[in-house]
């Protein structure tokens, strides 16, 4: 990015809420049903139908508002947003416009340089999703209205974001909070989390905003970063060439890595918002607010701080372990068996996450239970097995999630800690490797590793490495 300029970015994020039923009728929100089966007169927009608000949607949105430090408006109203499109049967979307349910919030993102930055949240409101138009068929266009009326929450940020990286961090933080609350699965690729961006650029130090454009259709976190970088470059290039920026909407094309302007006809909308007369104002009483507050789980930042303080973990570990609520839960379950916080952290961050990432599975589907992993750590700490043997036992546990103690017994992997037994093995190895012993005595310290290796091989890795080391050094120094 040209150093003279800075970008001003605001994001509008739509999060599909994980309610069982739609926002204004009793239809299922289940994904993947046969087209047009999760529908009823209400979501089909038949004449005479009326919307009835799903209370869960209010609860979820208030939870998000509280989690993002918003003011929860005790009275909010639904409005109709009008545009004609076949996947919107009423030709208006029920949304919120004036008087949304949550306003004036913020979240904090951790920048790479270790500093923290607040990103303001202008508003969060509730609305209904549209259906899906399927164009690439032999027919002209097919419409599936299963998604019509699925509850959405729109989260609008202040124009506080300055770089694509910040946008990425903001989005991942939002996703983290949403999934912690259990109100959205946060999957951008599947469309349950969607993001549109408003972007303008200006000379550094300038306080007025430049002309903004809107970029849509960015369906992954990385795409958001790329699309923003592209659009910022494009705007700076225009300004550098002395050209004007046209206020317009662009669609990100992930295949060719460019943002293309939408046809102007498609964006020339006057939505004619007005309060929906079919729905009463949403009033949140103290009692309801208290009940929602009780549902509030520990949020990522608080959990991370607790991990650092209570378990004396490095910030890096705590960050990774609290990246999702499930992973943090997994970690904390290990600690019901062992109090070796750091070892537990190491095991999760290396062995566990390696498998999770390679196999692309959720931590909740991880084959080794946290309790068994805790036992394994205890087996190392009480010197029943060595760390090296533990890796083998872990590999075995991945296949069966059996109790590590059982595996160790069955496979006869208990560590040899008897010094006299180890001493006789050491003597045997030394007498068999005279050449290396002499090399060591002449100063080649490296040879020690070879000799340890031989001993471990002899014991199939079961000898306690510390004892082996001690005895070996004793024997060798007595030879000097």
């Amino acid at each position, binding site marked *: 990015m040209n150093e003279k300029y800075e970008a001003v970015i605001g994001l509008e994020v739509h999060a599909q809420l994980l309610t069982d039923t739609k926002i204004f009728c009793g239809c299922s929100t289940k994904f993947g049903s046969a087209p047009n089966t999760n529908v009823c007169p209400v979501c089909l927009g038949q*004449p*005479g139908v009326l919307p009835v608000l799903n209370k869960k949607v209010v609860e979820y949105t208030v939870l998000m508002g509280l989690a993002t430090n918003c003011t929860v408006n005790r009275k909010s109203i639904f409005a109709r947003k009008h545009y004609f499109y076949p996947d919107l049967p009423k030709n208006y979307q029920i949304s919120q416009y004036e008087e949304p349910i949550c306003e004036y919030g913020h979240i904090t993102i951790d920048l790479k340089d270790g500093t923290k930055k607040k990103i303001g949240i202008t508003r969060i409101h509730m609305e209904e999703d549209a259906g899906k138009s399927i164009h690439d068929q032999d027919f002209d266009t097919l419409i599936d209205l299963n998604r019509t009326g699925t509850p959405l929450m729109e989260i609008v940020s202040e124009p506080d974001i300055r770089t694509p990286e910040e946008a990425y961090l903001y989005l991942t933080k939002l996703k983290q909070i949403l999934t912690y609350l259990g109100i959205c699965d946060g999957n951008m690729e599947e469309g349950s989390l969607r993001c549109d961006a408003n972007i303008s650029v200006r000379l550094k130090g300038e306080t007025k905003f430049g002309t903004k454009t809107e970029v849509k259709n960015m369906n992954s976190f990385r795409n958001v970063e790329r699309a923003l970088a592209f659009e910022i470059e494009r705007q700076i290039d225009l300004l550098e060439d002395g050209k004007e920026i046209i206020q317009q909407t662009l669609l990100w094309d992930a295949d060719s890595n460019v943002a293309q302007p939408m046809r102007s006809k498609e964006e020339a909308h006057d939505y*004619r918002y007005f309060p929906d007369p079919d729905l009463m104002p949403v009033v949140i009483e103290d009692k309801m607010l208290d009940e929602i507050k009780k549902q509030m789980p520990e949020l990522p930042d608080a959990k991370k701080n607790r991990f650092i303080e209570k378990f004396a973990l490095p910030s890096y570990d705590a960050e990774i372990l609290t990246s999702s609520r499930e992973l943090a839960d997994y970690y904390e379950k290990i600690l019901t068996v062992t109090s070796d916080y750091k070892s537990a952290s190491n095991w999760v961050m290396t062995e566990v996450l390696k498998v999770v990432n390679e196999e692309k599975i959720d931590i909740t589907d991880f084959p080794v239970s946290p309790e068994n992993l805790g036992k394994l750590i205890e087996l190392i700490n009480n010197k029943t097995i060595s760390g090296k043997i533990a890796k083998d036992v872990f590999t075995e546990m991945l296949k069966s999630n059996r109790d590590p103690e059982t595996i160790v017994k069955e496979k006869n992997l208990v560590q040899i800690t008897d010094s006299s037994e180890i001493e006789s093995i050491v003597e045997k190895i030394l007498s068999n490797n005279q050449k290396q012993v002499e090399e060591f005595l002449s100063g080649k310290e490296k040879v020690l590793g070879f000799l340890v290796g031989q001993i471990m091989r002899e014991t199939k890795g079961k000898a306690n490495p510390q004892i082996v080391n001690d005895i070996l050094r004793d024997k060798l120094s007595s030879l000097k």
Partner: protein
Amino acid sequence: MLKLTQYRNHSEKIELIKSGKISLRKNVEEFLHEIEDKKELNAFNFVFDDVLLQADKVEEKIKKGSAGKLGGMVISIKDVLSIKSRPMTCSSKILKNYEAVYTATAVQKLLDEDAIIIGKTNCDEFAMGSSNENSAFGIVRNPHDTERVPGGSSGGSAVSVAADLCDASLGTDTGGSIRQPAAFCGVYGLKPTYGRVSRYGLTAFASSFDTIGPFAKSIEDIALIMSVISGKDPKDSTSHDIEVPAFTLNVDNVEKYRVGIPKEYLNPSSEGGLDQEIKEAIENQIDLLKENGYEIKEISLPHTEYAIATYYILTTAEASSNLSRYDGAHYGYRSDKANNLFDMYTESRTEGFGKEVKRRIMLGTYVLSAGYYDAYYRKAQKVRRLLKEDFDKAFQQVDIMLTPTTPTVAFKIGEKSADPLQMYLSDIFTTPANLAGIPGINIPVGKNSEGLPIGLQLMANHFEELKLLRFAKKLETIQ
């Protein structure tokens, strides 16, 4: 042969059926015969062919003593209310081939009490009109003078009751669409409090104004139907969770309600004013009340002159939104001229909607447009609040308000159809109740020198339908 007019209300009818003096089947056959006989009135869009079958079933129940409260009452339904597997057209070309996929709550409640639904009545297209001249099924004629309009928009419902084509009817009232045709046709018509009767299944015209209410030939039947259709409906968030009274009319021990006469109604500032004969008829009723010891108070509803303008800004705004779903995409009429999406919308709507509906969609779209919203829609909402406050204040002084229902008697077909503003002014006395959400009823109070019915309107505070009905009954007894 026994005549329809042999009973004055439903309880008398039930007695006659129980005692074997009339048969329900015969009664329904007579209605069907009358409908056929008075076809030129054009009151019905659809007459159900299984109505005799319904009658037989209900008659059986009546004899066994297991029939519901409305057992044997023959009711017509305005063609803007859904009845599953029956056509529902809203008297519009755009829904001419549409069949409802569910039943409106109010209609379901009638069916649950064994009412017999005889058919769907003609009305102004999407309930927009005051004369029933805006219908894709043709105009409806006034049985008192077939050269005159029956009023609207529930013209067919009013005529079906006035011309003895059924016992009662369910209509809808957004700005007077029950009371005005009831006045023009000389029958009772009640517009309930907004929120008293579920709107679920009522094709929306203006959602914050629309109400469903009964037409009947007696106050007793109006009360009986109200006792059935009222109540909170989980399917309608705007229906009110308030106790539904039994609607018993025993008026002997009822207190003497204080009656208010809004001065703006008897001396309207609008062009045309108030018909002299109607004014006299109303004044006669006021005198009668005075003679019977009622306290009559002149009151003021100072914002009355803004009612029509406010009403048309807000209702057209809501209508433009509510009617956007009729687009040819999912159901109803689709033009075969179009070969792309945009043309499908414009051609289907251009061909499918009638002139008045299009006028209101355009007006409503305009008042909601960016740059005009504050000047029209938002300002009209503020005036609506002022109009409501007028009523709140007035009801601190009086229990009942008494006014003419309409400024004129039924006018000639074609007389006002060229001048929408004149047409809109025929609702001048009825729109305020919809703006305020309060109940109102038309009481027939005789005829003018040409033999045309005159209607008196009573209004009461929110959810005080029972007061209205008891007072109406009292008024009837002192005639």
